[in-house]
């Protein structure tokens, strides 16, 4: 294979889903106190690394750029990506960004991607299948529309050859194969690969890799276009749902199946 690839992987730091999560402060944004690299983004990074390695890796000129947008904690997602094998890290951060909805987030990311593609064009933008916090899944599609690119979401396999990609998508009732020309925005599922763990060599190598910090002025975005001011949606109220409480718990004494059906009948669920 002659071609080399320049791939941007969007990585996000999200609250660890093993703990309770909360909405805080002005605009009810998610509290990111205990944040980690989104587990779902590791699959995107692994897919990028495999595509690059099949073409000789970083030595042959392939680039895997981990891009994260967010406050200072977001840099941890970039560091972890460098340890896994990304060739470069980029942290987009600005005081005006917090509170951005999907539209504002995609605007900032699109500008950052254009900025990173100014020298050599970007071939692929890879993302995870969803963030584990916002859960709206809008950003990859909005990013593609802003960049005027095809989107291929929920890819469970991905091949690139001669400026085109082929991907497999699995829905509940069908499976399909899709093709698109590069550049394209692709989100991958947790079925596409088994992400690697950073090894000792990777951790040492990551220390020598640089992380570029970009602000909004670096990418030509006005602060009024992002954050709460630039968002097209606003959360007007948020209420914590009362926690569920335990009901009746019984131990099976040989008739629990019957009691289960009695319960369903009493709840009019039969």
């Amino acid at each position, binding site marked *: 294979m002659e071609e080399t690839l320049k791939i941007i992987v969007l990585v996000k730091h999200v609250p660890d889903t093993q703990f309770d999560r909360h909405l805080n402060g002005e605009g009810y944004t998610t509290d990111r106190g205990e944040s980690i690299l989104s587990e779902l983004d590791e699959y995107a990074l692994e897919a990028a690394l495999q595509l690059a390695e099949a073409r000789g890796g970083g030595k042959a000129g392939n680039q895997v750029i981990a891009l994260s947008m967010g406050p200072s904690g977001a840099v941890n997602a970039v560091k972890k990506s460098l340890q896994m094998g990304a060739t470069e890290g980029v942290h987009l951060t600005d005081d005006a960004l917090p509170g951005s909805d999907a539209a504002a987030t995609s605007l900032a990311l699109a500008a950052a991607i254009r900025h990173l593609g100014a020298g050599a064009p970007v071939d692929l933008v890879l993302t995870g299948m969803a963030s584990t916090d916002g859960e709206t899944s809008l950003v990859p*599609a909005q990013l593609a529309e802003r960049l005027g690119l095809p989107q291929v979401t929920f890819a469970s396999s991905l091949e690139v050859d001669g400026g085109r990609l082929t991907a497999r998508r699995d829905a509940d009732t069908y499976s399909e194969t899709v093709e698109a020309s590069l550049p394209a925005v692709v989100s991958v599922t947790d079925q596409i690969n088994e992400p690697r763990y950073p090894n000792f060599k990777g951790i040492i190598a990551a220390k020598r890799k640089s992380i570029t910090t970009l602000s909004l002025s670096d990418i030509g975005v006005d602060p009024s276009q992002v954050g709460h001011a630039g968002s097209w*949606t606003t959360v007007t109220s948020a209420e914590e*749902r009362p926690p569920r409480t335990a009901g009746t718990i*019984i131990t099976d004494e040989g008739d629990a199946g*019957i009691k289960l059906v009695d319960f369903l009948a009493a709840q009019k669920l039969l």
Partner: protein
Amino acid sequence: MANVLIFIDNPGAALKKSSLELLTLGRSLGETAVAVNGDLGSGVSAAFADYGVSSVYRPSVQDLDDYLVAAKAAYLAAAVQAAGATTVLLDNSPEGKEIAARLGIRLSAGVITDVVAVDQDGTAHKSVLAGSYTTAAKTTTPVSVLTVKANNVAPEPAAGPSAPETTTIDVPADSTSAAARITSREQKVASGRPDLTDARIVVAGGRGLDGDFGPVEQLADALGAAVGASRAATDAGWISHDAQVGQTGKTVSPQLYISAGISGAIQQKAGMQTAKVIVAVNKDAESPVFEIADFGIIGDLFDVLPQATEEIKKRKG
């Protein structure tokens, strides 16, 4: 001019319940128009009249289904402009959300997903962070794009039928240039069970099944339920990945969720804790699922589930 436009993709021979819900919700907000993709049969046209739709739009091309998302978004943007709509309603499927996403950028319109109710002033209600919060949200733009979850509105025809006019919308010629093309598609074998996301009852199994989903499937069939699974069960390959309920799978909020052999770690809870009634069966009395179960049975699911299945069959005669 209609102010609410509803997108219905491939309505088929008869409208789905979720489509009727969108038509009913739309009518509560204003005059409704429908943008259809695919064949439009007489039964569907009649349903549009029954539900008081004022106009029906159809695309000038027949190949929108050959492309992923972008082409449908381009068509819908043109339909919104023709209708002069200020609210656009779509279903909350993954494709519905992605069409909404691209449409939002095309129209500079705010997009709100996972909506369960809409007030007269356009405030949309939804639950976030896996059901641990309910929020109210509004768009700040002239046009609002909302994707609405199924089973939250009771379908109701209009007081009097309408006589909708059909108009063809010219799909922009460049609509497919930024779209991935579908080159082949294979239908999966239908299970005959209801769709997991919309099912009224879900019976789900986990690690405790030890590879044998039989008891879960038999109980599901006795109840007319969908079958779900924990990540442990799908990762072990005991059941298709589509069945996974939880953080990295599907979020369900059925009337009844029966959890069998699932410990109920927070990742699984995230997918099902908005169910109306939760029943749990697990050997381990310490399983976290018992903290949220309305009815919990500490016992062997291989005894309890078959007994319940037999009892249901007996009572249903």
